[in-house]
């Protein structure tokens, strides 16, 4: 290994540049790629609904059930 400092340094810097340049290149084209993906799979705001607290979902479910029951009653009444 002695006397290999320079080759290690040169190879090391090359590898770091290759790795980060690759990442930089991918980052550069990522917006374009995601725009193309967006045409096939549109971005939705699913995260907001996923991260909603369980309590909110329960309230929404109860409200929906109540509304459905009300409509059902109205529809079935003479």
């Amino acid at each position: 290994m002695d006397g290999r400092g320079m080759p290690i340094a040169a190879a090391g810097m090359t590898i770091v540049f290759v790795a980060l340049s690759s990442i930089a290149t991918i980052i550069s084209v990522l917006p374009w790629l995601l725009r193309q993906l967006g045409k096939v799979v549109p971005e939705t705001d699913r995260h907001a609904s996923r991260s909603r607290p369980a309590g909110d979902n329960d309230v929404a479910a109860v409200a929906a059930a109540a509304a459905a029951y009300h409509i059902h009653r109205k529809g079935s009444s003479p």
Partner: protein
Amino acid sequence: MTVLVEFLSTTGFATMTWGNLLMIVIGLIFITLAITKDYEPLLLLPIGFGAMVGNIPSIPGMALSVYDPGSVLSYIYFGVSQGIFPPLIFLGIGAMTDFSTMLSNPRLVLLGAAAQIGIFLTLIGALYLGFTPEEAGAIGIIGGADGPTAIFLSAKLAPHLLGAIAIAAYSYMALVPVIQPPIMRLLTTRKERLIRMPPPREVSTRERIFFPIIAFLVAALIAPGSLALVGMLMFGNLLKESGVTDRLADTARHAFIDIVTILLGFSVGASTQAQTFLTPQSLSIFGLGALSFAMATAGGVLFCKFLNLFTKQKVNPLLGAAGVSAVPDSARVVQMVGLQEDPHNHLLMNAMAPNVAGVIGSAICAGILWSVMVK
């Protein structure tokens, strides 16, 4: 009476050496710097106290120090000696890092690569001074300005130098506001320091989610040795950006990283026993460490100037200094130096791009050195 005399002969007063005393004083200096000067307090305070603990002389036959098998401290130190804590710290760092500024200006990523020159030039210097290749690799990583990465690599390549390397890395990280500005001013003209950078563009949620996955795959495939560090960094970032694991991300960036930092700082401090720490090698490591920080800063700034020769939209070369991965200290230094020239030129957001790229870069360097040296 005999029992009393025997007991007194085992006290710390009786077995204390001048070296232990010096290390306790150094520990006290660290604590003082952390409390009064606010220099990296989250690390210097645990390291300082750990240094005091580690330099109370052990009683022969009793397992007390980090190096005594079966001692309580040795179990805590296990996380350091086996390189477990640094990736866990990276998990927390990933969960608190916003890569948006880097995603909005990809060419600034290259500054994070250029600043790694400090690591490799220091490696050459250490080899020249007679260190073994493994030791030289571990010392060189100080130039990455990343404490956990330095600890990780020294644990793998040169465990006997771990204490000195960790202390040097964290000391110089604390001294970033002192070391970097003179080099930045020396290597740039006033006109260059006045260059204004465009504000970062808005980055979509999808970009932020895709980035950690892509960056991990690229980095780990090119340098598999960086797998643990980059993997945990990007995993932490995905926890943050996915938007569906807020609880995990919150734990990773608060309680989790705090616990690991306490254990890491304290046990690294406790490993600095005078008998193993106060050696001529440690002095060389401190000298090389200072040099590596300076060279990393210079490398980033000079590469930025080189880049400006070929690009129409000039980059403020001060940003090159943020390529060292002392996050966010070196970005703050860039902001500070920029404001000194023009009070309305805010470079902080742009400086965060090479700064976080530097974290990835130094982790990749650790992976490269590890894979080269173990062969």
